[in-house]
């Protein structure tokens, strides 16, 4: 299963709820959800466990739009483009959007 979160982690509880239900699955941060991946931000600590296991991704075009360089990302977060988003859904099964 591939989970996506599209909201900022300091604005809504969607990321928190997703992480509470993530178990061993994968998480892709899209839209305003990518702010969670900023290492210097408060929310990035929440990603530490799954990121260390290579299960957290952030959408590149959404990072660029928001002025977040790849060097600013928390350890273990992998950047993918839309092609990578498609591959993640294809490989890891049903999509669950935490809207």
């Amino acid at each position, binding site marked *: 299963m591939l989970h996506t979160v599209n909201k900022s982690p300091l604005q809504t509880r969607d990321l928190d*709820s997703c992480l509470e*239900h*993530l*178990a061993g699955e994968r998480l892709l941060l899209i839209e305003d959800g990518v702010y969670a991946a900023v290492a210097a931000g408060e929310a990035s600590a929440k990603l530490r466990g799954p990121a260390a296991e290579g299960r957290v991704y952030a959408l590149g075009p959404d990072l660029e739009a928001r002025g977040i360089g790849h060097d600013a990302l928390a350890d273990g977060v992998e950047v993918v483009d839309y092609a990578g988003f498609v591959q993640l859904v294809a490989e890891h099964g049903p999509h669950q959007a*935490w*809207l």
Partner: protein
Amino acid sequence: MSDEANWEDAGAVKRFMFVNRKAPHGTIYALEALEVVLISAAFDQDVSLAFLDDGVHQLRQGQDAKALGMKNFAPTFRALDDYDIDKLYVEAESLAQRGLSAEELIVPVQVVDRERMSALMAEQDVVMSF
């Protein structure tokens, strides 16, 4: 219904979960999720509903949106049983945070803990989140 004919040809039965995480009335998401659930009944799939986070508010008794001119759709949850949709899972932690108990809900539900809810989600073929 031609839709039905199509999928029956394919013979597929999938596990569909409708995930409800939003409060009713503030946005139309909750109401429209229920519309899809009702339609899905015609397709004889393995349908379940999950209520977590603010989605549990959808099941509160006594909702009355008349003064707002909006629809009272909560009673429609009572009709699901007639469509053989009886897997309604409600997350215990979400109820507790909101001071709600299962007895206060408009329909009988299965209260599950967060771990069980995660496991149920992971078993699905299709997840529609609202």
